[in-house]
Structure formats: structure tokens, C-alpha cells
């Protein structure tokens, strides 16, 4: 592809999704500095692979951001802290609906709850609720079957509801203190 033409089309199709790329990287890495470095690397990868883009640019870019994030975490942290497939759901009784409605409005609690959520659930929820991707787009960005996307969304939501409806003084307070090390998103 002509280099100037490539640059122009990249600016046109990819650059508008910079904020989405950062938001995803920020929630996956749980660190502002890491997220910026990850996105820079992801944009360079995206530029190098731009000729292979077919179809919608946003899920394509987010797939690259996601893979770059995981490579980054593997390189810079112990990935054991990132794999969550065996993570058990929190064993809490079904929430009292009135209480869950009240607590879910507390923004800092929601932020903390999302940060302590297992990575795969967090990623699926960020892609669905913040980026507005369809099940199909999430499946292609994450590289899993549609059914897995649905199950991760559903387990992630259940998990969040349980955490958010638990009283602040209960044992989830400790979990939140431990899981919230990543600091708050900006």
C-alpha cells in the first residue's frame, strides 16, 4: 500500500478509537502508565498489520490492544495473577434487591468491584457496557465462542451484583482493599 495513503487511512479508521483502546487497556492492566505503553505498542502493531484489516476497525483494534495487554502482563508481571479460569464465584446469598439498587449507585464501590473482578469477566463487561460491542464482536475480539462470551457476561454480572449488594463491613471490604491496588481509573 502507498505509505502516505496507508498513513491517511490509518488516521481515518484507527485513530478515532484511541480512547476506547486506552479504556480497555486501562481496565485490563489496571494501571494508567502500563495502559499508555500498551496502547502505544498496540498502535504500532496495528499500523504494521493494517493491510490485513478487513471489516470493522474497532473490534479489530481492540483485539490487538487486548493481546498486547496480555503480552505486556506476561512480560512485566506474573501472568498467574491474570489467569482466572479457576476462580470460584463469590459464595454470597442472593442480594436483597432494595440494597443492591442503593449500593450500585456508589461510583467508587463500582470501580473497586470491577477492578477486583476476574480479568475475563471484567474484559467482557468493559467491551459490552463501556464500548458497546455486540456479542459477536466481543467473541471475535477476545477469540472465544459466542456461548463463552454470554457465560462470562452473565457470571461477571452476577459477581458484581453480589459484591455490590454485600454490606460494606463484610469480608468483601478486605477483598476490595486487596484487589484495589491498581488505583482508580482516571
Amino acid at each position, binding site marked *: 500500500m502507498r505509505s502516505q495513503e496507508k498513513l491517511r487511512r490509518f488516521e481515518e479508521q484507527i485513530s478515532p478509537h484511541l480512547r476506547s483502546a486506552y479504556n480497555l487497556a486501562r481496565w485490563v492492566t489496571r494501571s494508567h502508565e502500563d495502559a499508555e505503553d500498551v496502547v502505544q505498542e498496540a498502535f504500532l502493531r496495528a499500523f*504494521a498489520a493494517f493491510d490485513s484489516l478487513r471489516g470493522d476497525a474497532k473490534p479489530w483494534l481492540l483485539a490487538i490492544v487486548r493481546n498486547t495487554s496480555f503480552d505486556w502482563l506476561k512480560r512485566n508481571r506474573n501472568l498467574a495473577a491474570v489467569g482466572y479460569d479457576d476462580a470460584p464465584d463469590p459464595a454470597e446469598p442472593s442480594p436483597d434487591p432494595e440494597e443492591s439498587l442503593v449500593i450500585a449507585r456508589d461510583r467508587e464501590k463500582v470501580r473497586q468491584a470491577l477492578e477486583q473482578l476476574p480479568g475475563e469477566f471484567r474484559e467482557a463487561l468493559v467491551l459490552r457496557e463501556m464500548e458497546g460491542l455486540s456479542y459477536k464482536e466481543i467473541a471475535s475480539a477476545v477469540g472465544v465462542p459466542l456461548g463463552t462470551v454470554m457465560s462470562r457476561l452473565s457470571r461477571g454480572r452476577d459477581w458484581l451484583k453480589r459484591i455490590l449488594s454485600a454490606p460494606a463491613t463484610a469480608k468483601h471490604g478486605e477483598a476490595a482493599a486487596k484487589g484495589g491496588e491498581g488505583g482508580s481509573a482516571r
Partner: protein
Amino acid sequence: MNCDESRIYLAAYFDNELDVAECLRVQQHLAECADCRRLQQEHATLQTALRDSELYAQPSADFAKRIQASVLQAAVDESRRERESWWARFGGFGWVAATVALAVLAIVVGTLVLNRGSLSPNQLLAGAVVAGHIRSLQPGHLVDVPSSDHHTVKPWFQGKLDFSPPVPELSAAGFPLVGGRLDYMDGRQVAAVVYSHRLHQINVFLWPNHGSVDESIRSDEVQGYQVLHWSSAEMNYWVVSDLNRAELVEFAQFLRSQ
């Protein structure tokens, strides 16, 4: 539809992933079942909470510029690699072929390069100049010696470069000096002299000219930045800014007349 069935569909219903017929069935069940309505309500509350714009992570203010500069640099590198690989391919012909082909090559390669849309050396340099300009606008990168006094800036370059860059005083013309720094351009160390005009920064990159002299000002626009270029008998000049072209040309004329 019963409750068990409804719970399977409820999330997909909420995520707008059901077709019309399925939607109607879920809605029908919701109208009849308070438990499932409660679930739906929870779902809605959670969704509102997650879509809170304050939770949406924001990068630093200058992040977009940083990314733009690094992609531009990648484009420049890629274009250079393409050009080099062409030369390497043609270089493998051996002496005879090379000699015979040389005259033709000048035309062929020129045409191929043009047809492939690769950038000319000056376009490459213009890209590098703009990347250098954007880099310099990152916090703390603009100048190594901040001074509006050319008697301070000019001596600062001594011993750091193998040439002495001219640093004229242009504040009377409305272009006060901001300072100077070292940069790297066209495979060598160069002087970067920074002027300002209102809120705009102007980077002047200069280094000794060993090639041909072309005093007329060539202009180009790269990524929305204006780039001007000329070469005097002593120096190559590259001027870059987000200033409009007319004013930047005016600045270049002042600079050239010094």
C-alpha cells in the same frame, strides 16, 4: 415462557441480542412475573452504574500527540525500508548488469518508486521533521537551553555540534526566541532553534549543507503541520509549525534575510 427459560434469555434481551419474536416472548413473561422484573431491574441498575462516564478511563492530555508521533515515525521507517529493499534487489545484479542497467535504473526505479507511492527523500525528511516537532512539544522536551537571548543560545551549541548554527534575533518581527536544543535528523546531530509566535511554537532544524544550494522556500503540509525547507550555501533549513502557511513563510523570509 417460564422463569427458567426467561432467565436464559433475559441477559440477551437486555443486550439487544434477541430477534423481534424472542423479544416479544420475554416482554410477555416480564409482564406476568415479578421475580423476573426484579432481575431486569437489577440488570438495569448495574448497567447504568457501569456506563457511568466517570468510570471510563481517560489517558493523559498529550497522549494522542504521543501516539500520532510514534505512528508517523513508524510510517517514515517503513517507507525508508521499502526504498532500501528496492535498492538491495537491484544491487544484486552484478557489475555488468549494474553498469548496463544503471542508466535505465535511474528511470525505472524512479518510476517504480513513484508508482508505489513511496516517499521522496525530502518527503521522508519532512515526516521526520514533523515527528521531531511533535516530540519537542511533549512536556519538558522543547528546549535544552531556554533563553530569549541569542547571546545565550548561540554559545550553548558550541562544543555540542561540529558547526555553529546561526541564531538570529527576530523578536522585533514578532517571533521571539524560545531557546535551543540538540536533535537528530537525516542521520546526524542537528541544531533545533525554537521561536514562538503568539501561542505557536516554531522549530527550526538546521545543519551544514554539503549538497546543492536552493534558496527558494519549498513548502509542504504533513499531518496538518506546515513544513518549509531551503538550503543556503552553508546550511540546510527545515522549519515546522502549526502556524498558518502565510505567517510561517513570512517568518522564513525574515530568517533567510538575516
